[in-house]
């Protein structure tokens, strides 16, 4: 809230200088260094002090399977990241899903989603971003930094897989939720396989389209997107260059990234091996069962139910197994 109020207060100054655009307000991080209130912990599941491990056991994950692997960035800072190994004997124990969370808070807020993916029987490599959670730099990333940090994460994945006793050159699956699609699509499109095996599939849930698309959608009298945006954070343009398999999950009642914007992204994807799953009645926000957060209605997994959701995910990961 402080961030938004500040944004409103700086508006008059920005008016005088003409320096404002929406590209600067894509991320909404919470860093552990500012501390968390009781409400943060109860409602948003932001509880863990800097330096402590996340409470994986609260989400049904054996903490012994979770290992922190900080990503070293170009400027020497580190982004927090966790590798959660598949449960012993899991059917897809050789498959790794790289999970990129949404723009709010930090990885800790999404541990329920990490655990859900993990219950598909896969390894989950969950990334945090600069300025978020327990990353070393408390300052939010610019778009250029974000993409550079994403590239750094991608380049270090083979070594992390090797450290975890996995096949380092095996293709990984990418899962981008909401603004996490910015990281997912960047990895899918812009990053060379390097020493790794590339991308076996891309899964996007309620994904970020572009600032321009949001800007156009915010008014209903056809105001050009370029008035509000420098054209950054543009997944729609980027995904044209993706040719691998692609699953798109999107709720019909998503009031944040409306489904028509998701369709725009889906249609732009340069692959024919793509599938759009429209989930009737699903909203956008990370729905944490049992938490009464105002304005957060059941999301895609909550509406589908865990079994149906995981069936979809496992089917999509068929390209990654074996």
């Amino acid at each position, binding site marked *: 809230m402080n961030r938004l109020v500040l944004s*409103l207060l700086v508006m008059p100054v920005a008016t005088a200088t003409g320096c404002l655009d929406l590209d600067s307000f894509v991320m909404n991080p919470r860093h552990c260094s500012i501390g968390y209130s009781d409400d943060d912990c109860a409602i948003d599941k932001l509880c863990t002090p800097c330096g402590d491990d996340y409470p994986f056991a609260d989400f049904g994950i054996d903490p012994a399977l979770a290992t922190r692997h900080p990503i070293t960035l170009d400027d020497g800072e580190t982004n927090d990241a966790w590798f959660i190994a598949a449960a012993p004997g899991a059917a897809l124990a050789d498959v790794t899903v790289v999970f990129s969370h949404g723009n709010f808070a930090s990885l800790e807020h999404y541990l329920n989603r990490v655990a859900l993916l993990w219950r598909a029987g896969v390894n989950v490599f969950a990334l945090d971003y600069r300025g978020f959670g327990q990353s070393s730099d408390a300052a939010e990333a610019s778009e250029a930094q974000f993409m550079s940090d994403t590239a750094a994460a991608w380049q270090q994945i083979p070594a992390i897989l090797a450290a975890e006793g996995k096949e380092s050159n095996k293709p990984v699956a990418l899962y981008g939720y909401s603004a996490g699609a910015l990281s997912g699509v960047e990895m899918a499109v812009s990053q060379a396989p390097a020493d790794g095996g590339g991308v076996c599939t891309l899964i996007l849930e309620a994904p970020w389209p572009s600032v321009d698309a949001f*800007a156009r959608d915010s008014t209903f009298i056809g105001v050009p997107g*370029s008035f509000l945006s420098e*054209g950054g954070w543009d997944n729609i343009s980027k995904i044209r260059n993706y040719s691998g398999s692609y699953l798109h999950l999107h709720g019909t009642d998503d009031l944040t990234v409306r489904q028509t914007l998701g369709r725009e992204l889906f249609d732009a994807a340069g692959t024919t091996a793509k599938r759009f799953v429209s989930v009737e009645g699903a909203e956008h926000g990370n729905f944490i069962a049992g938490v009464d957060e105002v304005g957060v209605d059941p999301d895609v997994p909550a509406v589908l139910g865990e079994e149906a959701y995981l069936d979809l995910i496992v089917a999509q990961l068929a390209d990654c197994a074996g």
Partner: protein
Amino acid sequence: MRYTISLFAVAACLGSACTTFNNARPLAPGEHAAMVTLGGPVADVPGVGTIPMPNATVEGRHGVVDHLDVNYGVHLLPLAFGVVGGHVGGTFQLYDEPAPWVPVTSIGQRLFFFTNLLDPRKEQKDAYALSQTDLTLSWKLWDSLVYGGVSAYVPIDVEDRTLHLAPFVGVEVHPGLDWLRVQLEGRWLSPTTDQRFAVVNWQAPGDMGALAVNLGVAIEFSELFAVLVNDGKAPPADTDTAAIVTSTAREQP
């Protein structure tokens, strides 16, 4: 996502093109006024509440001939985004007030123009124009003006010329000073547009269109001049200033 969307709500106010002073009755010939208007469509801004968007417009208005004035203005919020925006227009009053309680009818026309041509950060250069036509009925109630009507907005665009209507009601009062007018207006923008799935959570009955609230302040220069020069009293008839002060005092009856 929630706070990011809040910023979109603020930014989307650029497109509201509704934060202008309502000219229900034209100024008398030779009269000048300056207006500042604040407000815009109402949206639910997560973390803040339900508020009108903080658009601001500075305008001028000039009585040309009997029953006709012109107006012009610049829009401040777009400047924050590197967008230069302004409007020009005029209001024509169809007839004098025939009798108390019988409304005066006026027709107004404004053309809005915005461009990011001067913003060096933007590779994509665009221009946007919008036509606004107002049909206004107004009643004098003692020293105040009550008005209502409908505006018709049409983007001047080869691809999209969708007509958006906006019914409005407002009141204009003198808060104890002859040279000062305060106007409060409510407007329902595009009540036929379904906004249920819009990115911005505009507030309106049935999620149709968006309600807007504007607060405007106008300074009428001849009245202010009268106060400054003559201490608010009618000047002697044989002075030069008398002709100015007494001939250009008010809006059309």
